[in-house]
């Protein structure tokens, strides 16, 4: 009779295999909802951290000493595939759209390629009425440059059941001509997971 139980159990397992063929369900979710599915630095973390840092910079009033500014691409010094261009863009958005910031955002290193291509197209292709084209040599230089860097450190408990990942987003603002830092700050986020 023992074999009977084994057969029934095997049949149950088989039905579970078939159940696994069901199609996944797709739904819309709140893009700003806290994501606790992973210890990785998620899109939410990227946007929220960058926006927080931009707010801190705005509140410091230091941007008042910059007539124009640019943002260098945020460096990713973690071992995760984090697209930090999201942070760069989120900071540029916050600073540009804030009524408290009067300085002008000018093209960054990343955007320079397209800008140069467009100027070249307008001025050198021979296709445009030169009275309507943007002229070469008229771009505004940035008075201030914003640098950012994301780092991480992972700790695993001796029994391997808990993991803690500590992230630090470090930002500094430089006066380009003087090379002097006029503002520095960092923000920490820690994410833990227990198996």
């Amino acid at each position, binding site marked *: *009779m*023992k*074999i*009977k139980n*084994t*057969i*029934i159990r*095997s*049949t*149950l*397992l*088989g*039905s*579970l*295999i*078939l*159940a*696994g*063929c*069901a*199609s*996944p*369900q797709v739904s819309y979710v709140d893009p700003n909802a806290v994501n606790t599915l*992973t210890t*990785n630095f998620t899109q939410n973390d990227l946007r929220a951290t960058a926006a927080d840092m931009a707010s801190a910079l705005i509140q410091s009033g230091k941007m008042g000493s910059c007539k124009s500014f640019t943002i260098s*691409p*945020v*460096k*990713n*010094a*973690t*071992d*995760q*595939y*984090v*697209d*930090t*261009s999201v942070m760069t863009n989120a900071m540029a958005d916050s600073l540009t759209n804030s009524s408290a910031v009067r300085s002008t955002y000018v093209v960054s290193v*990343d955007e320079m390629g397209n800008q140069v291509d467009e100027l070249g197209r307008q001025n050198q292709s021979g296709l445009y009425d030169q009275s309507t084209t943007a002229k070469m040599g008229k771009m505004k230089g940035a008075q201030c440059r914003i640098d950012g860097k994301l780092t991480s450190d992972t700790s695993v408990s001796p029994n391997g059941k808990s993991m803690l990942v500590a992230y630090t987003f470090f930002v500094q603002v430089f006066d380009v001509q003087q090379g002097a830092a006029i503002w520095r700050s960092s923000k920490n986020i820690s994410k833990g997971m227990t*198996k």
Partner: protein
Amino acid sequence: MKKRLYIVGFMFLFINGCANNVLPTYSDQTNTTLSKVYTGNLSSAMDINNNSDDILYNMEYGTIQRLQSNYVSSNLFFTKAQNTIDLWSANWQSSSPSAQSLNAVASVFYESGTDYQPRDYEKVFLSTLHALNHLGLNDFANARIEIKKMYQVEEAIQNYNQATYIQEQTAFQKEKSGTAASLYDQLSVQYDLNNKVSPQIIALKNSYQNAFSHYLSGFVFEALNEPSLSRPGYVKALQLQPNNNLIQQDIKRLDSNIKQNSETTDLLIVQEVGHAPQIKSNEIHAQIPRNFVSYEYASCLVGGVTTLFYPVLENDTNNQELYSFDLDGKTILPLPMVNIDMMAARSLYDNKNKNMAQSVALAIRNIAAVQAKCLSDNANSFALFGGTVVTLGAVDIEKADERNWNMLPSKVNINRVNLPYGVHTFDITINGVKYSKQINLTKPYQILAYRILGNQVYFEPQKDMFNKENN
């Protein structure tokens, strides 16, 4: 008693419900393919089947197409295979944890009669080879998509393993300490004896992550001027190959923001060697435990012995691990990045419990079938399902699953050099046979890949990289 027979019959039906891929002699098939590939007969190595949904066929045939530089055709087959993996990535979470744990044991039950479940390292390599195909077509944007899939699949594998590990272990321990305990014990001894695990295999971080895929990721993102994604690629590659100087230099270069000189090419040379290990089914004849058999059927189980199956690896022994090559007359030795033999061995090691559960489940089914037949003979009530059970025994599917992606290379080695735009000479001599190519470099980032199989070297260049007279 009749109920039991219905159950046995039903088992047969569900087992075949999802099967479209019964490949009982997979190693025989791959032997034929490999012998053709090793003698230069790529076009006849495998029959084409554009309508196959078999993921393994699509991976194997896609690789054969890649070896012929038919990247567009190769991508068609790789895409079909990838669809299955995408479905798995999206689907596995939909099962409850308890179902996953049972499924983990059950999914290997009667595996050779079911659709092929790619090994974890194969899932990662599929995206990697797919990315290389796109690079072969000078399509970095689509290569980027495959690279992202590569590390997303890795994450799905990691999540799956984390979610199922404890439940799987618990379920297995329960099985192992049950009535079939002595079958597990007998099988375990032979499994370990014939699948020796070296310290290097144990030292692998896991069975699915490989340094080459992440290095390629770093290279593609660097070429696309996305340093924030390029750096983690190199960092992860270095975590998996900690002593590799090339990777260390790449991270330093990226951190120091040094741009390469204009009118020069960063050339990544990818040397793929041999074929992935084949899997063979071994068997042992194990004593059926006395407490395992119902008394009334004891006389039917002749000798009280059942057969248990387990997989063993047969590594590629036709090729060296590394081959030096000459670039513009200068001899260069590539650096090892991936040893797929070791990854396959680690996979077998990690899946020992599942493989044993499959084998014992088959044995239990066979014992049940014999007992059912016994009842049929005694009470003449076996007419309904008796034929079905006999058919099961007649089909040669009672063995460990021998399927795996054999056309993957055995090793992947790389080099990276910076060369001025223009024509350069690449030479490699294999077993006395010299292969020479003129390569034309015209872009900042390019890749030259090739596969060594015996005396054959199959070049997988980027489109328009070779001068016409080479081809």
